[in-house]
């Protein structure tokens, strides 16, 4: 099969998360869903409109492939409008993954900015599946307003049922908001972890990830244990379109998940 040919999937279920964001559970028209690792992405095709890279945000109860999609442009808007039964195309999963088993025996710090929580949900679910293997687990989530927080019920469950320190901060509070306001980096002060024995998984806007990573490094977390997920323009996902280059890397193959030991120098070069 040609690497650019999507496999037909149908939308199994659709759940609006917030005004501009929808979670779709997808299943192939025939055969089982492919396996995936936390942090990997697919290319999703909206017929006649286009195809975009999309992180996998979970495995559904019936084995479906779950994506949380924010409508920002033509393709993402078309995908957010899909209803149960509608056809989409899927290629992948592609790309590198967060090494969750590699964090065994360590404290774990998960930092999400906005929609970055979507791919990181697969990390947290795997942490929970093997909870006893890890030390302290903290999840920090930043969001624009209390209304735009993703997966609020699941966040509460993580805190209540799985011994995870969940901290949420908002940029713009509403009158009912009693929690922290401001950047996610400020919440790093509030969580407990032993820097030299900590693995960190970070996803969000690039500026936020760099601020978080620099902060974690300053506290003594090893750079290769601060692992980000980078976003670049991607037209193919399989290393042939050239759009996702970051210096020597093709982020669809060498990323999107990348240790800060390699990412820091590359992200520091403007317009690389």
């Amino acid at each position, binding site marked *: 099969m040609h690497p*650019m040919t999507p496999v037909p999937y149908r939308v199994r279920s659709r759940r609006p998360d917030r005004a501009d964001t929808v979670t779709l559970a997808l299943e192939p028209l025939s055969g089982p869903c492919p396996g995936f690792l936390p942090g990997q992405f697919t290319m999703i095709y909206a017929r006649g409109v286009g195809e975009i890279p999309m992180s996998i945000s979970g495995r559904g109860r019936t084995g479906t492939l779950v994506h949380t999609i924010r409508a920002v442009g033509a393709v993402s808007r078309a995908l957010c409008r899909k209803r149960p039964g509608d056809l989409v195309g899927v290629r992948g999963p592609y790309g590198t993954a967060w090494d969750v088993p590699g964090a065994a025996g360590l404290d774990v710090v998960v930092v999400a900015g906005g929609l970055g929580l979507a791919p990181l949900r697969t990390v947290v679910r795997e942490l929970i599946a093997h909870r006893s293997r890890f030390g302290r687990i903290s999840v920090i989530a930043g969001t624009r307003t209390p209304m735009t927080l993703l997966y609020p019920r699941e966040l509460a469950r993580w805190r209540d049922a799985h011994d995870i320190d969940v901290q949420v901060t908002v940029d713009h509070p509403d009158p009912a908001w009693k929690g922290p306001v401001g950047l996610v980096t400020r919440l790093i002060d509030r969580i407990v972890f032993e820097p030299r024995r900590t693995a960190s998984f970070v996803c969000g806007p690039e500026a936020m990830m760099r601020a978080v990573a620099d902060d974690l490094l300053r506290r003594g977390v090893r750079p290769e244990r601060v692992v980000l997920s980078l976003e670049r323009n991607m037209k193919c996902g399989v290393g042939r379109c050239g759009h996702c280059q970051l210096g020597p*890397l093709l982020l669809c193959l060498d990323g999107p998940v990348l240790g800060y030991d390699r990412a820091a120098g590359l992200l520091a070069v403007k317009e690389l």
Partner: protein
Amino acid sequence: MGIKRDISHTVWSVRGNAVMDVVTRSLEPLIAALRAAGYTVVGPTVKDRAIRLTEISSAAELPDGTGDVQEPGNYRLTERDDGMVFGYAASPDSAKRFTQPPRQTLIRSRGQVIEEVEPEAPRIALLGLRACDLAAIAVQDRVFLGGRHPDPAYRRRREALFLIAVNCAVPGGTCFCVSMGTGPKATAGFDLALTELAAPHRFLIETGSERGARIVAAIPHQAATGDDVAAADEVSRTAAGRMGRTVDTEGVQEWLPAAHDHPRWDDVASRCLACTNCTMACPTCFCSTVEDVTDLSGDVAERSERWDSCFTLDFSEVGGSPVRGSQRGRYRQWLTHKFATWYDQFGTSGCVGCGRCITWCPTGIDVTEELSAIRYGTEGPSCIR
């Protein structure tokens, strides 16, 4: 020619045992034999005041007596009085158009079906490719076949191509294949390789594949004498000494990415129009984008892939704005990718030294000059011979 060729990344196997070089007087039987074998022969012709690769049915269509002048931002055909058939350098066309079509339809979808569109893989004999062109095909082989996601359509097109190289006798003013280690003599990746010899006018033919040998067997030829082989070697030796340009790529993989803050990037950015010509003319530039269309009813959708260029703004757009918003960032990306980071991604240089980007840049930007300026400063050794 008994050498075992480096075919680690080519798609057919080449016979390893010795095949004798032969000599032929006319290309007419060769073209006829290729056509009889079912190939469309595509070769150099004069069209649009340039040498262009077009379908030919007779050797009479080849541009005998045509030469060229190539300089930064300048290409001009000239007349030659020696009647040479291949007395010019790399033309604006390369094999890229045939290995990676400028536009190809990938899929068609209607109802619950997404179907792959059968790729076209015409049997084409490309006549007149230069050593740099073969090197460029080998680079593209690595891109489209060498990785984790090999492209079966590319493979089919590639296998359907019969490649006839011509060893350059008259390099152009913008050529630097010697610096890039890709020419001027074709040493691998061809079915047949010709060297045009004078007094008497004849062609030495080297055979690089079994199907090449079958074509040779079908045309009138004589075994090459020691004099023929020596004359052919002399053509390549002379050509190697006549490169229009040189470039020092020693350590370029390290020093070029490290020079990301060099003031020269601003200087070249002020001259670059971001017109994308260099990337379109380059035989290795492979970047592409996709386009989606639906029929009027909206029931049937098609998606196609077409050539793209890192010089466009939307190439790097993410989150609503381009990563490389400045001309400086885009030129730097192109040059650094070509000469340095290509190694990281594909284990080879992205430049084969054909000079096309220099000739076809409307403002005459010269990659060899830019590299030299970044490495040594503008007072450093000149790249121009």
